[in-house]
């Protein structure tokens, strides 16, 4: 076996390491170029280290890749480049999963999104956005570290499936000014998935970003400041949803057609809509003066979704279903090496977040009070059901690193992080012109949290690296959470690296999950306990000149997962509950490299996931992968790229629902109706500099989903019926054509 492995490696070395790469007959430069392709990451250990030394599986996405491959959001970077992560778009907040576990409806709160060490997940529901809702100019990003696997050991709650660590550019790299303009066209889509190129059906996106970096000396100390702003808008193309008809409601004694639009016919849902729209505005400011760094961000993200989940209430089709997030983040940090054995970091942070979700309903029985306002016409009345959430949090973190020998081989990191957070929400029923009809289910809470963590790294031998850490989080209302992690990396004589990682994470129940309540549908559950996960992984990675491949096997145990489920004692009512757990295991692999002017990459992840109670994970793909090829036409010339993302069939979000016929018999979907088709996303990009104008670059791009429908069931009919044999699925964005132009003034 050993001989076979060595033979295989030798053959592979011969095949790849000495390929012509510009090297001479004396000595190829492939190994040096390969080393220069080795990223340095700071996310997994909160300290700079080679990616292959880090105690996790990490995909690094560079700003050059973001530009040349036309990646505009985290969502796209995850799908087209990451190993082990997957994202999918319900025409709403993009959902992200990893290694066969995607928890639909979690608003991204099983990943932690960190920008320059500052967590962006808000403190009410733990929400993080991966589409334009991240509200960050993509040009501000130096590189992304997509860390797969539990990461609570240094980051605390929410790092269940992984951490997305965003590292921004330094002022000097941005230049005096950097402007980007971008526009895209999207044709209309019919209910059967076909495209319509009629001019009136087109939608579009537009984006403008402006960045400026400036560095100098102030009072003898280096000073730099970066300012960035971005505005993004998407005014949707016409989308047609398949109609659901014969919809009725009743009060127990009689039935009547249920109204799903303010002005359309009663008893019917679906048709054409142009209400798919997004607006994002963000402002960033970061500065550094000597050992002090500062960071501030203000962002607004609003969107209209054509067929939003109604949280069990009757939400109009094509109605005013919109959401808006506003956030403000501030951080001040001081870091210094005090002596060769000891360095310190202290940071203070403050964040504020506000959420407004409004859904239009024309069905008066779903009004929170169940009563019409005085004088309202029950046959022609619409109102808005709003959820208004808010969170404010702030804290102080102190971190010390003790380098026992003063040479970087045995650094011990110790830290303590204390924070206070206030959050709350109210449900409001209002008329379309803003008159408040009722306020209900308000809650406010003030909580504290203190965490202490330690991480010892040890280079026991030049080829053997150990990383062991633990974090203890105490939070008002919960028992302490302990999240350990251990990792060993061994570099074999042939420069292959073996890595063993055992890591754990937790996610505290969010304020929303504990306290949100909707009359007649959802009740509070303040007794929720944290979710937990324990993961083991074994990986092997080999570099052969400018080529690299990796293979990782993993197994995870999730417990106490929080889901919205019916109350056994009162089935119409639901509550977030600690349900059973999940067991999943699988493999992921990567191959990437460069042959002269051609670079390539591909990843694959396959997983088996089973729930303790035999239920199936909805909307979560069990296998997925991506592939890309880029060809540089000539030295420093334009680059042409083709990208693909594929994910396997999976259960739709309505797959577990059952109906009942008139005789009380249970109706189930057919197997074909329970599963979505595979999802295939393709993209072709051409990007390059315009030589005639210094600093100018252009990019053209065409792409879209091959499959017409996603995995998300929409509309009021979510269960099988005699005449309803397959759920109505939300459309995918099938085609876009985009042109970008950027200019940098050094």
């Amino acid at each position: 076996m050993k001989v076979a492995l060595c033979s295989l490696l030798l053959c592979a070395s011969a095949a790849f390491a000495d390929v012509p790469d510009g090297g001479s007959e004396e000595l190829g430069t492939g190994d040096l170029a390969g080393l220069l392709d080795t990223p340095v990451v700071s996310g997994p250990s909160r300290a700079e280290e080679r990616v292959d030394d880090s105690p996790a599986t990490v995909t690094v996405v560079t700003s050059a890749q973001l530009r040349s491959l036309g990646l505009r959001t985290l969502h796209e970077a995850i799908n087209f480049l990451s190993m082990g992560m997957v994202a999918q778009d319900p025409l709403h907040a993009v959902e992200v999963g990893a290694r066969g576990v995607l928890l639909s409806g979690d608003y991204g709160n099983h990943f932690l999104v960190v920008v320059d060490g500052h967590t962006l997940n808000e403190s009410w529901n733990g929400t993080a956005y991966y589409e334009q809702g991240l509200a960050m100019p993509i040009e501000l990003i130096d590189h992304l570290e997509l860390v797969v696997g539990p990461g609570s050991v240094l980051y605390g709650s929410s790092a269940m499936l992984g951490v997305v660590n965003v590292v921004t550019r330094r002022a000097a790299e941005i230049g005096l000014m950097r402007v980007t303009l971008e526009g895209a066209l999207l044709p209309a889509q019919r209910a059967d998935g076909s495209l319509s190129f009629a001019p009136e059906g087109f939608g579009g996106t537009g984006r403008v970003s402006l960045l400026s970096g400036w560095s100098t000396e102030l009072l003898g100390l280096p000073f730099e400041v970066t300012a960035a702003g971005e505005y993004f808008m998407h005014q949707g193309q016409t989308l047609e949803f398949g109609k659901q008809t014969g919809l009725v409601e009743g009060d127990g004694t009689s039935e009547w057609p249920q109204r799903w639009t303010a002005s359309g016919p009663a008893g019917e849902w679906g048709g054409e809509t142009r209400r798919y729209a997004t607006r994002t505005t963000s402002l960033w400011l970061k500065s550094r003066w000597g050992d002090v760094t500062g960071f501030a961000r203000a962002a607004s993200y609003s969107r209209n979704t054509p067929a939003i989940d109604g949280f069990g209430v009757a939400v109009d089709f094509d109605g005013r279903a919109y959401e808006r997030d506003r956030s403000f983040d501030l951080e001040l940090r001081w870091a210094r090496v005090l002596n060769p054995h000891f360095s310190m970091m202290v940071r203070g942070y403050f964040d504020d977040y506000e959420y407004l979700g409004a859904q239009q309903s024309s069905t008066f029985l779903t009004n929170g009070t169940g009563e019409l306002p005085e004088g309202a016409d029950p046959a022609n009345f619409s109102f808005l059901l709003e959820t208004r959430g808010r969170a404010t949090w702030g804290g102080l973190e102190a971190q010390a690193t003790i380098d026992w020998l003063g040479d970087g081989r045995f650094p011990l990191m110790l830290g303590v992080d204390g924070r206070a957070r206030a959050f709350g929400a109210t449900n409001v029923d209002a008329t379309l012109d803003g008159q408040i009809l009722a306020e209900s289910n308000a809650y406010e809470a003030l909580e504290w949290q203190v965490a202490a963590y330690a991480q010892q790294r040890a280079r026991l031998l030049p080829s053997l690296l150990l990383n062991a850490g633990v974090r203890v989080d105490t939070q008002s209302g919960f028992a302490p959470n302990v999240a350990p992690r251990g990792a060993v990396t061994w570099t074999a004589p042939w420069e292959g690296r073996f890595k063993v990682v055992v890591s754990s994470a937790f996610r505290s129940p969010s304020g929303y999950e504990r306290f949100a309540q909707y009359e007649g549908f959802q009740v509070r559950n303040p007794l929720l306990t944290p979710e937990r996960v324990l993961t083991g992984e074994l990986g092997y990675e080999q570099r052969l000149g400018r080529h690299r491949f990796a293979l990782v096997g993993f197994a995870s145990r999730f417990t106490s997962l929080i889901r919205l489920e019916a109350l056994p004692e009162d089935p119409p009512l639901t509550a977030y509950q600690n349900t059973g757990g999940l067991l999943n295991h699988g493999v992921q692999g990567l191959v990437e490299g460069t042959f002269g002017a051609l670079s390539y990459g591909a990843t694959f992840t396959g997983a088996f996931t089973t729930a303790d109670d035999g239920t199936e994970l909805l909307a979560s793909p069990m296998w997925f992968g991506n592939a890309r090829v880029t060809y540089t036409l000539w030295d420093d010339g334009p680059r042409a790229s083709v990208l693909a993302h594929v994910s396997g069939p999976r259960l739709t979000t309505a797959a577990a629902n059952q109906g009942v016929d008139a005789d009380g018999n249970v109706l189930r979907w057919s197997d074909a109706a329970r599963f979505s088709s595979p999802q295939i996303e393709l993209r072709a990009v051409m990007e390059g500099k315009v030589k005639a104008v210094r600093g100018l670059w252009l990019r053209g791009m065409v792409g879209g989903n091959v499959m017409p429908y996603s995995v998300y069931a929409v509309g009021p009919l979510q269960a099988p019926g005699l005449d309803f044999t397959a759920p109505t699925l939300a459309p995918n964005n099938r085609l876009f054509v985009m042109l970008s132009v950027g200019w940098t003034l050094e």
Partner: protein
Amino acid sequence: MLAWALLLSLAASPERDEPVVPAELQVELLARVLRYDRSFAKATPERVKVLIVHRESAPSEQFARQLSTALRAAPVVGGVPHDDVLLRFTDVARLLEEVERTGARVVVFAPGFAPESKAIATGLEGRQLITISATPRGVHEGLVLGFDLVDGKPRMLFNLTSARRHQSDFRAEVIKLMTVVP
């Protein structure tokens, strides 16, 4: 006034240039890239002397120790076994004496030499050795080779003018992998 003084004292970094590539990776790159310097290969005896110079400041000394440890773990530099000497910098004259005395062919500067880099480069001019800066800024100030981090990946900076002054003769295909500083 008190707040201003406090802020100033907090901000007052002992170093104006910082390493952005970990020491181990710098050493690994250094050990490999020197194989492509023809003059290094020709003029180097069976063992090469590597001088690691640091200032009397905590960040500088810490990084120098990390470089020294990483060098000890590397069996060869530029294909040649090596002996390493850690030197605390006092002034340029003393540095030149030490270079002369040890016969160093590789002089690695830990962070903190931005202000003196020009004087050092001038002082060492004409000697057949290669100067390495742990920070990007040192290369702009006249040291031959240095390390930067761009897009999360290491990048070698190369000062062509300084290289000529030290008779370094890197092969063209390797220079293509570097960012050349005029």
